[in-house]
C-alpha cells in the first residue's frame, strides 16, 4: 500500500516534468519561429537594426531550452512563461513595434516587470538552494533581502550591459542619460520590493 503511494507520487512528478518539458519546447519553438519570420521580413526590407534585434530575441528565446538538460528542473512553469512575456514585451513590442519610442512609460513598465520577475526567480532559487529544514531556522528577512538583492543585481547588470554597449559600440541605449538610468533602477527596485514584502510576510509558504 505504502509502496504503491510512493510510486504513484513518482509517476505524478514524472508526468509533471514531462508537461513542463513540452511547454518549454512549444513556447521556445513558437517564439523562435515568430522572431525568425520577423527577421526574414526585416532582412528583405533592409532594416538592419530590426533584424539584429529579432536575432537577439531568438537567442533569448533559446535560453530556457537549457533547462531541458538539467536532471531536475525545479524552475516552475509560471517563471518560464514569465520569461517569454518579458521577451515579447521587450523585444517584440518594445523594440520592433517601437513601443519604447512611442510610449515613454513602456520602458519603465518593462523594468518594473523585470524587477518582479527576477525577485520571483530569487524566491525559486531560495527554495532550491536552502533545504526545507534550514528555512525554518532562518529569519524572514533573509529570503526577502535575497529576492530584493537578486532583482537589484539583475537591474544593475542590465544597466552595465547598456552602458558598456554604449561605450564600445552603439551610443544609443542610455541616451536618456542619468535620469533614464535612475528611473530604470528605481522601477526595478520597486518591482523587487513588492515581491520582497510578500516573501517576508509569507516566508514558509512562498
Amino acid at each position, binding site marked *: 500500500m505504502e509502496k504503491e503511494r510512493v510510486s504513484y507520487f513518482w509517476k505524478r512528478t514524472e508526468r509533471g516534468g514531462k508537461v513542463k518539458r513540452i511547454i518549454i519546447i512549444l513556447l521556445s519553438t513558437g517564439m523562435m519561429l515568430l522572431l525568425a519570420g520577423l527577421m526574414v521580413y526585416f532582412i528583405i526590407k533592409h532594416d538592419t537594426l530590426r533584424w539584429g534585434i529579432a536575432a537577439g530575441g531568438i537567442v533569448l528565446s533559446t535560453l530556457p531550452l537549457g533547462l531541458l538538460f538539467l536532471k531536475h528542473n525545479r524552475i516552475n512553469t509560471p517563471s518560464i512563461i514569465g520569461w517569454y512575456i518579458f521577451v515579447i514585451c521587450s523585444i517584440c513590442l518594445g523594440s520592433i513595434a517601437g513601443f519604447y519610442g512611442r510610449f515613454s512609460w513602456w520602458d519603465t513598465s518593462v523594468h518594473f516587470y523585470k524587477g518582479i520577475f527576477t525577485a520571483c526567480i530569487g524566491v525559486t532559487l531560495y527554495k532550491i538552494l536552502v533545504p526545507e529544514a534550514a528555512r525554518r*531556522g532562518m529569519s524572514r528577512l533573509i529570503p526577502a*533581502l535575497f529576492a530584493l538583492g537578486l532583482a537589484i543585481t539583475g537591474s544593475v547588470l542590465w544597466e552595465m550591459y547598456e552602458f558598456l554597449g554604449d561605450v564600445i559600440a552603439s551610443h544609443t541605449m542610455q541616451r536618456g542619460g*542619468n535620469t*533614464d538610468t535612475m528611473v530604470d533602477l528605481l522601477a526595478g527596485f520597486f518591482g523587487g520590493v513588492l515581491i520582497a514584502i510578500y516573501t517576508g510576510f509569507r516566508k514558509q509558504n512562498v
Partner: protein
Amino acid sequence: MYKKESGNMDRKIVFGISLVYVLWMAVLCAMQYTAGASWKAAVAAGGVISGAIPLILSWVPRLRFHLPLVISYFLFLTGSQYFGSIRGWYGLGWWDTFLHFVSGLLLGFAAIALYERLVHRDAGKAISAWFVFLFVLGFAALGGVMWEIYEFSGDQFFGTTLQGGGNKDTMTDLIADVLGGLVVATGSGIRTKRK
C-alpha cells in the same frame, strides 16, 4: 568559553580602533578650525561622530562584533573623510571610484554579519554556497543602488548636484560597488563550500 574570550578580544579591538579614530579626528577638527578652514573642521567633526558610534556600541553588553566589518568601516571613513574631503583626494577622479569599491567590500561584510545573526547555527550547514554568494552580492548591489537613489532624490527634490558627473559617473560608481561586493561574495561562497 573560547567564544566568549574571542568576543571580549574583538570588543577591545573595536574600542581601541574607534578611540584612536575619534581622538585623531578631534585633533584635526581643532587644527582646521584654528587654521580657519571651517568646512574641513565640520568634516572632522562628522568624523568624531562616525567614530563614536562603534565606540558607544562597544560598551553594549553581549553585542558581538564582526571585525572585518568594523575594520572596513574605518578604512572607508579614513578614505572618505580624511583623504577624500580634508586632503582633497576626491579631486583626483579615481578616488571616488576606489571608495565605491571599498564600500562594496564594506556592504559585503555587513551582509555576512547580518546573515550570521539571522540564520540559525544548525541551519547553516545545509545551505548551498551559491545562496550565500548571491545573498552577499545582492546586498552589496542593493546598498550601491540605494546610495545612488539617495543622491538622485537629493538632486531632484533639493537641487543638490550629487550626481553632477552624469550617467558615466553613476555607472562607474555602480560597477565599483558591485565589484567590491563580488570580491567578498566570492570569498564567503568559497568559505561556505569548504565548511
